[in-house]
């Protein structure tokens, strides 16, 4: 488990912490990834208070990142908030699931000011709205984007490119394995 020499946290610490959180916030599921990394899933309405508690009571004062995974099959977005504790040198990912069709989430910019940048990115790339987050509707890294949010899994990039950009005539796709065998290693048979 982890780096033997560097490990500062015992397994017990993380387990106890997670048990406390489960009692207090009625979390669904805990994955102990490593001794110093755990995943925790809470209801989306309890996420804000969970993060607030972790920040003020448990020493998880640093928000490392906010990210989202698009589970198109289950029609959900899974948001992950990765927190870091400088004292115990451990990480905790708090996850919340929201509906993919009505994708709105509570903003946490009042807990960590840097969160609004992540929220702005998620708004542009996945179309998830964070009401009240500063400048959330501004352009983040795309300029004058007029298509659907580009990181959604049902956004067909190849089709979009075909419509917007022009291929060079004569460009053809080849089966690399087949082409290399025919042109470079003709003496080698089927393997």
């Amino acid at each position, binding site marked *: 488990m982890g780096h033997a020499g560097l490990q500062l946290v015992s397994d017990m610490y993380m387990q106890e912490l997670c048990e406390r959180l489960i009692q207090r916030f009625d979390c669904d599921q805990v994955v102990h990834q490593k001794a110093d990394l755990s995943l925790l899933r809470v209801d989306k309405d309890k996420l804000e208070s969970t993060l607030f508690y972790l920040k003020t009571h448990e020493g998880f004062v640093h928000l490392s990142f906010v990210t989202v995974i698009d589970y198109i099959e289950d029609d959900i977005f899974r948001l992950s908030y990765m927190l870091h504790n400088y004292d115990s040198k451990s990480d905790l990912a708090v996850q919340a699931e929201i509906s993919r069709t009505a994708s709105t989430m509570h903003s946490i910019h009042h807990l960590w000011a840097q969160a609004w940048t992540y929220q702005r990115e998620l708004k542009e790339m996945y179309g998830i709205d964070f009401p009240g987050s500063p400048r959330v509707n501004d352009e983040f*890294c795309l300029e004058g984007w007029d298509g659907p949010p580009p990181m959604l899994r049902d956004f067909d990039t190849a089709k979009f490119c075909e419509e917007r*950009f022009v291929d060079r005539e004569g460009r053809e796709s080849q089966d690399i394995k087949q082409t290399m065998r025919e042109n470079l290693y003709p003496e080698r048979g089927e393997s």
Partner: protein
Amino acid sequence: MNDVNDKLKIKSPSAGSPPGDGKGPASAQLENAGLSLEEQQLFCDAAPVPYEPYSPEFLERFHNWIRANSMWVLAFGTGCGAIELNPLMTSRFDANRFGIQMRPTPRQASVLIVAGYSSIKTLKRIIRSYEQMQGPKFVIGLGICTINGGMYWDSYNTIKRLDRYLPVDLYITGCMPRPEALLAGFMELKRKIKAGECDGANRYVKDFEWYKANQKKVIKKWDMPDYNW
């Protein structure tokens, strides 16, 4: 191996693009519709004019010889390929011995290297920089991405063919081309300039409307003058 090379051979830059009907510069006055009324007063609204070669001809040839020996490159790293320019300029490959040097401003540069992929956002800056360069000016497309999109062939935010947006004088293919390939490319550009074959800037003027239409098709937020001079 030869068959492979034949298959992979890239067509010449002019293939399948600008109409080249030589209609000449579009209208004398550009609309600058992307700017506010206030800003329209601040920017030039004249269309570019073609470059007239010196006459008699030997004077033009003499000037071409000078241009070929003082290729000043705009130090604008437009993509990942710019990383190959650093070893090119420093002691190992020392491009300075061929009269190639970096300039910090488009006003002093005559060669623009579009190094690798260019996203829509970068393309806008590339166009601005290119148009601000003084003629005669040359464009080098560096890397496969400028030729047919390369590994970004299905990227929603990256152009596939540079020659639809800017007149490309020379391509150096590869992903990434090594500094040796770049040097070979510069030597080829030098030969072409000396032979008077690099008429990219004039092509840009002649097919100005075609290039602008292509540029505006992908750059949706056009908040700059139609011709940046």
